[in-house]
Structures are given as C-alpha cells and as structure tokens.
C-alpha cells in the first residue's frame, strides 16, 4: 500500500536515537489506536456495563445487540439516503466535470483562461458564505427537507477541485491522439466520447474516490437543508441516535462503528487507490 519506495534503504543501525524514535512511534500508535479500540469495545457493551466496569474492560459478551438495535431502528434509512445521494451526485458531477474539462484542456478560445481562473478561484471559498442564500433558494423552490435538494450543493462544491484535477489530467493526453481521430472524421463530440473520455479513466476514478468520500461525509448542507428522517443522510444519523439514546453511550458507539465501516471496507479493497484518491484534493494550495 501507499506509493512509497519501501525497502530501498539500508537498515538503520540500532542506536539510542532509533530506540527513542521507536518509542515515540509506539506512543503515536497508542494515541491513534486507542480511540478506535475504545469505540469498538464499548459498542458491544450494555448501557450500564460500560460505566460500571470501566471502559477498557472487555465486554461481557460479544453479542452485537447494540448493532441489531441500531440497524432495526432506521439506520438503513440514513444509509440508503446516503447511497442514493452519493450515486446520483457522483454520476452527475463526474459527467459534467469531464465535459467542462475537455474544452478547458484541449481547445483554444478567448474566454478559456478567464473561465478556468474563475473555477480555480472558487476552490478556497468557505461554504458558509453561500449557506443562507442556498437555504433560502431551497425553501422557496420547495426542495427543503428533500433528499434531492442536496444534490445541487454537493455537486457544485465538488466542481472546482474536480475540474482543476481533470483539466490538468486531460492536458497530458498527447495531441496526436485527437488529431488522428479528427482526420478520421470525428467531430468534437464524438472525439470527446470515444477518444478523450476513455483515456481519462484513471483521472476520473481518482476523482470518484475523492468526491465520493467527501459527499459521503458532507455535513453542513445536509444539516441545514434537511429535517426529517426521510431525507437525512448518514452524517446526521449519529446526532439523531444521540437524541433518542442520549444516555446509552454503547449504542452511539455502535452507530459510529457502522458509519466508519464502509470506509474501512473500501480501504481494504482499494488500498493504494483510496489513499491516492483521498490525497487528490491536495494537489494545489
């Protein structure tokens, strides 16, 4: 995993400084790992078991009753909402971003630099500056508390970084590929669908991961634009369960584990690709 160049270097000799480094490394392992252990272990406990017997005591039984409770009390509703929102937003986002990146990377026209600059400039805009007008717009268009009201904001705020990444990616495809297709009689549109789009698969899949994760975790718009269970997404599930089970910490821990689980499964399947996708947003400051 990770695009590193491991095992290239000679083994560091075991000096005091390396033992010290190892010691610090283990401390950071504990700091990182402990909250996860805390979360998983306590998610199997009963409400009073956790506080009475100590939080680092192994649970009495590993029977997943909290998980059953959470799954039967509407967790799947939030989960499905998130899945639907993700699939629709991502499909729309990837398609229109690919469309926009094509002329930005491979055509010459007067307003090109201006448009590209505008899109880049939107990258560092804080979401909050748009929140009230978007809220107002959503309510007046009767999209408040509807799942599909979240598609627009999710797509819009993923566009700038995605366009930037895909435009730079498409610019690396050699000119000749397109020219030869043009000689064969391909117009701009056929060129895009049959030549450029297939060649941009790698860039698009990186974008899919990066945006997929950020849409999956999106909180601000979901919190502002939805209210009822029918429209809420997974990031809101935790506070919804907290409202119902405020004193039952183990149930909340089970909800937390269930929200992290999809990402961990994705990480196991994709490994390097996921890491690369997560880092995609870091291409430019």
């Amino acid at each position, binding site marked *: 995993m990770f695009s590193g160049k491991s095992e290239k270097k000679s083994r560091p000799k075991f000096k005091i400084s390396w033992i010290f480094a190892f010691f610090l490394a283990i401390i950071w392992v504990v700091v990182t790992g402990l909250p996860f252990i805390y979360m998983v272990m306590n998610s199997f406990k009963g409400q009073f078991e956790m506080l009475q017997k100590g939080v680092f005591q192994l649970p009495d039984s590993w029977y997943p009753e909290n998980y059953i409770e959470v799954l039967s009390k509407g967790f799947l509703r939030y989960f499905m909402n998130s899945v639907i929102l993700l699939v629709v937003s991502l499909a729309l986002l990837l398609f*229109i971003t690919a469309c926009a990146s094509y002329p930005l990377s491979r055509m010459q026209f007067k307003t090109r630099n201006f*448009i590209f600059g505008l899109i880049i400039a939107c990258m560092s805009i804080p979401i909050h500056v748009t929140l*009230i007008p978007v809220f107002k*717009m959503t309510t007046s268009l009767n999209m408040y508390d509807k799942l599909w009201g979240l598609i627009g904001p999710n797509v819009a*705020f993923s566009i700038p970084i995605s366009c930037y990444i895909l435009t730079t990616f498409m610019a690396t495809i050699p000119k000749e590929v397109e020219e030869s297709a043009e000689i064969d009689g391909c117009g701009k549109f056929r060129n895009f669908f049959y030549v450029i789009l297939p060649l941009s698969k790698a860039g698009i899949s990186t974008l899919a991961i990066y945006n997929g994760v950020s849409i999956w975790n999106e909180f601000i718009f979901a919190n502002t634009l939805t209210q009822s269970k029918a429209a809420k997404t997974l990031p809101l599930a935790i506070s919804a369960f907290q409202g119902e089970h405020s004193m039952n910490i183990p149930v909340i821990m089970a909800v937390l584990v269930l929200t992290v689980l999809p990402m961990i499964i994705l990480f196991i399947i994709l490994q390097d690709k996921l890491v690369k996708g997560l880092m995609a947003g870091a291409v430019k400051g």
Partner: protein
Amino acid sequence: MKNMTLAQTRRRSTRIAASVFLAPVLIIMVIYIIYPIFATFDISLYKWNGISAKKVFIGLDNWKDLIADKNFWYAFKNNIIIMILSILIQIPLGVALATFLDAFGRKVNAFKVIWFLPLLMSSVAIGFLFSYALATSGGIITTISQWLGGGKVDLLGRAPHALYTVIGVIAWQYTPFYMVYFIAGYSNIGTEIYEATIIDGATRGQYFRYVALPLLKPVIKTACILSLIGSLKYFDLIYVMTGGGPGTATELMATYMYKMSFQHFKMGYGSTAAAAMFILVTSIALIIQSIIKERNEDYV
C-alpha cells in the same frame, strides 16, 4: 456564412462546442456558488429572521455591529490560534512520521496502517467519538488518570483547556493526511540520492538535515498553505464536539455564523458574519500566495 474562411468556421465551431461542454458546470456554479456570494452580501444589509417575508433594510448597521462584535473577533482569534498551532503540530509530526516510515520501510507497515486510520473517519464521527472519549465519565483520559491515581479530567468543559483540546483532536485527525503527503514527497526524492549521500559518509541525521529536508521544502510549503486555509474554514468537528462552547471558548467564525443564522435566526447578521468570513479567508489566502510567489518564483 458564405464569406467565412475555413479558419473562421473552425474557430466558430470550437466556440460552439466549448460553450456546450462548459454550460452545465457554469450553470450549476452560478446558481450554487457565485450568485449566493452576492446574495449573502445583499442579505447582510437587512434585518431578517429567515422565515418571515418581512425584511427591513438597515444599510450598514449589521456591519457596524459586526465590527464592534467582540464574539466574532474572539472567534476569528480562535481560528488564528488553531491555524498557527495546526501548522506547528501537524506538519512537524507528519514529517516525523513519514521520516520514520521512510527509514524503516516495509518492516513497519503495521504502524503505517494504524497511523492512517483517522483519515477513514469523517469529521462528524470524530467529533462525536471524542466528545465521549474526553468526557469526565466514561472517557479515555479520565480513566487513565484514575488508573494513575488522579481525579477526573475535564478537558472540554473549561474555557482555557477546551480550545487546546480541540486543537489536539484536529491534530489527531489531520496528522495522517500530512504523513501520507510527505510519504509521497519522500518517494519523489528517490533512492539514488539517499545512497549517494550515505556513500559520501553522511549519517542518517545528516541526510535528513541537509538533503531530505531541503528537498521536501516545496511539499512542506504546500502542506502549510493547505493547513492554513483549512483552519480558517473548520466547522464540522467543532460544531459537533463542543458547539463552540463552553461559552465562546471554542467558537469559530463558521460556528458563530451558523449559530447566528440557524439557531438565533438572525439571518441578516449571520450573512454579515459569513461575508466577513469570506473577505478574511480570501484576503489571507491572497496575501499568503503573494508572499510565497515573491519568495521564489519557480514555486506555483
């Protein structure tokens, strides 16, 4: 049409194709980003509760109030403290972890996987997890303190500690990001340079100090910019974990704006705070970019 040269027709068809391809993205961006920015500035001139149709134009009164609003500037100060400490904690720690992994290679892969884990959790989930893990009853820190014979530790409940506790949690969340970022930076340095340095008789420490660190400099700079801009926009984690409290101890510009607008229903004033946040974030971003450009031209 008849009098057009071939080049002109080509240019025209390019223009048409470009506008068709760009239209969807531009339309969505105008609706959801560009128009709302102007609208926010517009709403900032009104007194409005966000629900009723009654909007009272009050000119720059909201702006005058905001400039005199101690809470907003306190929130801004918190943003700046988070920004500075995030850079000072996360980036050196990220470099240290990446250096460790670079030195030991595949043998410490388990470390790498564990260190990476926080990146798989959303800010919201982290916020909730730590609000329990740092609580006085059933929390991790309190439990450890009691094992060691100490009392309860209330990290989030009191004003001076709460902000630093939050900064610690943010470091927990984002250090792995910078770690992976610097691992990529290390892999760009290449094996040959390391070997050449060692053949020349340098120690590992000298290699790090005189070779790796200078070569990582551009990566570190970019990481600083990312951390900087991110710090000014923090919201999810703090909103969930402390809600800006206790009192205003961990209030940020974003949480303040959100509270004003959606809890106190002062949408006009909330818009003013949002617009001010926009101005502050954009100007800080521009200043930093120009400083970096001045310093060395070859860095974009």
